[in-house]
């Protein structure tokens, strides 16, 4: 019993230290702020979406207003008036829909995709990786076979094929990305668990007669959790980018303003001089992905002790 009761202390210390290290760098703090801003926007978008669905009316981001087509961003509009700036601050698109509202909806979908695909991929990767690493033998062979098979599938094409089979729409995006991206995590977790399997604390737990599942999930898993966190922070932006591709190609989100859909729409209008939709969506994607990449790197530096020594040298 003592073993389990004392466990939280060192790991809590690790997380606390990580958090402190993350906050030390001004850049990382800034990026965390960017993520927070987009998270709030996504939550607002979700609330907005639910609200309109509940009231059964066309939401602002879908409302077509043909009198207000191709309005440039508020500040650039002539005649200049503050009312303009507030009304359509990022302009309107070719159907008079507000670009800001649509970008916020895009953030909502991006976060949904990032979170849901992680919720699919992480459990698969963690459970298979732990089981393979801990039990070894036949089970290990089978799981290694499974993930090397999935790893052999040609990336984006396989994701698109899964989405095609499951059906167009968000569901296809979730499953396509979620079911194909657990491989890297599984491989890493398996390696880590292999290392931990013969450690004294695991041997002690085994000597105490704990069940295998308890040892895996209560004792080993907390010690390899940093791998999960790092993978999540690096997979998140990748999932967002993939969703943009898929929606752009018409296989992803249907009938909702995701960033990919917006780019696909804005691309055709670019030639007519409507540069703002393209620009703002690009900036939004860049900001989110960049912020996640920077935070992911910082997390890796903070959590991976091997690298920590390196950087100091």
């Amino acid at each position: 019993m003592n073993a389990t009761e004392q466990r939280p202390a060192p790991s809590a210390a690790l997380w606390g230290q990580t958090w402190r290290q993350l906050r030390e760098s001004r850049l990382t703090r800034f990026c965390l702020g960017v993520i927070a801003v987009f998270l709030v926007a996504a939550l607002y978008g979700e609330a907005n979406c639910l609200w309109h669905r509940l009231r059964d009316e066309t939401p602002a981001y879908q409302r077509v207003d043909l009198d207000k087509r191709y309005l440039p961003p508020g500040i650039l509009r002539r005649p200049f008036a503050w009312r303009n700036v507030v009304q359509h601050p990022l302009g309107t698109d070719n159907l008079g829909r507000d670009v800001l509202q649509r970008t916020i909806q895009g953030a909502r979908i991006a976060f949904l995709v990032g979170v849901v695909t992680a919720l699919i991929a992480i459990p698969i990767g963690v459970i298979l990786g732990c089981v393979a690493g801990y039990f070894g033998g036949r089970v290990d062979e089978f799981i290694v076979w499974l993930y090397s098979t999935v790893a052999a599938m040609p990336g984006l094409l396989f994701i698109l094929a899964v989405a095609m089979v499951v059906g167009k729409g968000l569901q296809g995006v979730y499953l396509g990305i979620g079911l194909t991206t657990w491989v890297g995590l599984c491989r890493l977790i398996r390696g880590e668990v292999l290392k931990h399997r013969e450690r004294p604390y695991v041997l002690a737990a085994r000597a105490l007669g704990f069940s295998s599942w308890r040892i895996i999930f209560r004792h080993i898993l907390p010690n390899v959790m940093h791998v999960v966190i790092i993978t999540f922070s690096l997979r998140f932006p990748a999932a967002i980018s993939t969703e943009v591709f898929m929606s752009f190609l018409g296989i992803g989100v249907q009938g909702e303003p995701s960033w990919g859909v917006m780019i696909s729409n804005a691309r055709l209008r670019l030639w007519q001089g409507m540069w703002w939709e393209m620009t703002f969506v690009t900036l939004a994607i860049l900001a989110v992905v960049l912020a996640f990449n920077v935070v992911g790197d910082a997390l890796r530096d903070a959590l991976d002790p091997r690298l920590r020594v390196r950087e100091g040298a």
Partner: protein
Amino acid sequence: MIPTVGGVMLITFVLFNIVGGSPAVLALGKNASPQALEEFDEQRGFNKPVVFGWWTRTRAYPDTDFRRGMGPWAGVMGAAQIPEAAGGGGLRLTAGEYVVPLAFDLKSETIYRWEMQYRLAPGGHAEWRFEGAAPSATGPLEVAPRWQRAAAQVRTARDVSVQARLVVKSGVLELRTLRLRRRMPRPWDSQLVFYVRQLARLDLGVSLATNQRVTTMLKAGILPSLSLTAPILFVELAVAVSLALICAYFRNSWLDRSLVVTAVVLMSVNYLVWIILGQFVAGYQLGWFPIWGYESWRHLLLPVLIGVTSGLGGNLRFYRTIMLDEMYKDYVRTAFAKGLSLRGVLFRHVLRNALIPVVTNTIIALPFLYTGSLLLESFFGIPGLGGMSVNAINSADVDVVRGVVLIGAVLYVVANLLTDVVYALVDPRVRLR
């Protein structure tokens, strides 16, 4: 290697034959006639049992559960839903003869089986009657006061279309479910076996959109794909490795830092944005490059440039990490201690050793040359496999998608094997067993 190839085949099979509903409906649309769907299935082996079985579905008569609706019986004279007052949820046939509505003629010389759940009050009399069967067969239904299952088999004759009739002589026959099954001559004649046999003949099927053999399409598309992706790979490799060396040489200086920052920013810009911006600015506004087509090497310049830019960030970071990883090894310290210059150490020791992961990383990237670049090709009108795959996915051209995925995966496995071999060749510490 063999198990992985088997696994790849299995995954494509599971994905397209088991998970994915009906490829026929995906490809032909929901409103296609049952006959067209059946022909599609017949050609691609989708109308067989999945792995093993005697009985298989046929689209001549869809499984109907009369609790959910009338199905094909909606237009049949005299057939009615059981009224709600009487319990509802079934088809009610009063005295008379009813031709079971079939979407198309049944196959000749095949055994079919009707399976039903029915109710027939005592005193009632009803039977199956098959016209045109050899020999003309009847199957009386026994009296069933409660819901009961029954099946009637019929063997169709050659070149005679069979009519299946439900004849109610007296009383009322009530049906809850009705379905039709076709018997396979051999139970092993299944989708899996069909698929494996097809692959053994190196046949990847026929494209739905162009009606060409998939293998022919793959052969035609490989050259354009390679002419785009091979330059991307090698230019990117050269640029990324040289920049990584610069980073390692000037490590922790402002140059190194700014290169790393640039790499992260490059990584974070979406591929699509590179393409659209490149086409719009460099192609359209500045007019430096042709935007569309596959006619001369000039048409490849812009896509190659975009491909290199978009992949550069990630590769630069990767190679820089490798170089720096080597920089902290003991032998490097020894070399420095012996008084070698930084340049000497970098080029004579570090680069040589760092080349091992560089080489393996490059070989692993080789199979992706084959699938081409999905986006670049469809944007620039290059008739390679990438653009072809995107079109195939958009039009649900199952065989083409499956073919490209399958070959891509097999090439990946081969490249993996090749990596091991090359690893042993370039690194004397590794020996193949």
